[in-house]
């Protein structure tokens, strides 16, 4: 199994540009999550989803949007990129609720200039 995959691995954006970070899991997990990790910090939850068609905000949702049309995919959309969104983004999934072990993707390093 591939587990959780993320694309791209690296990306540089200009201020005001938009992009979508892709996340796919092949473990048939119901729960999926997007985190961001700023330098020297722990992870902060952006959005999460408890199943296809259901999403909810996490700790730092401003500036981001998500959708969950299938169990496997959970893309994260940045509409108007800002320098404050420079970070490493991690996607994760868990079989059931967050109490279960979360499986993380390799991360996407995003720089906004």
């Amino acid at each position, binding site marked *: 199994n591939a587990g959780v995959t993320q694309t791209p691995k690296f990306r540089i954006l200009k201020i005001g540009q938009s992009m979508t970070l892709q996340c796919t899991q092949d473990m048939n997990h119901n729960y999926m*999550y997007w*985190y961001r990790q700023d330098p*020297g*910090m*722990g*992870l*902060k*939850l952006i959005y*999460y989803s408890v199943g296809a068609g259901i999403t909810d905000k*996490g*700790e730092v949702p401003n500036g981001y949007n998500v959708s969950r049309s299938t169990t496997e995919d959970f893309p994260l959309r940045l509409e108007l990129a800002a320098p404050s969104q420079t970070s*490493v983004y*991690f996607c*994760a999934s868990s079989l059931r609720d*967050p*109490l279960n*072990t*979360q*499986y*993380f*993707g*390799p*991360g996407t*390093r995003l720089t906004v200039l």
Partner: protein
Amino acid sequence: AQTVTQSQPEMSVQEAETVTLSCTYDTSESDYYLFWYKQPPSRQMILVIRQEAYKQQNATENRFSVNFQKAAKSFSLKISDSQLGDAAMYFCASIILRFGAGTRLTVKP
């Protein structure tokens, strides 16, 4: 609100020795899980060990074990027989999805 605190931004240990990383947390939940994640330079997050709060017995995974003090809301990670491959950032985490700032572990050969 749930908070997770790691008071040691950096730790160092000699190869083959034991090191303990500290973590305290605050939660109003009565039942919860606690986790230690490892983040090597590759940046991928790897689960090291988890502890169910309702279990009194401390979790153990090979060289990794925890000292879970529920009343004190303390959840420390002990790494025995430290290896060079253990060098990484270590994050303590609790439900729901609150991470500490991390502890960078250096293993000296």
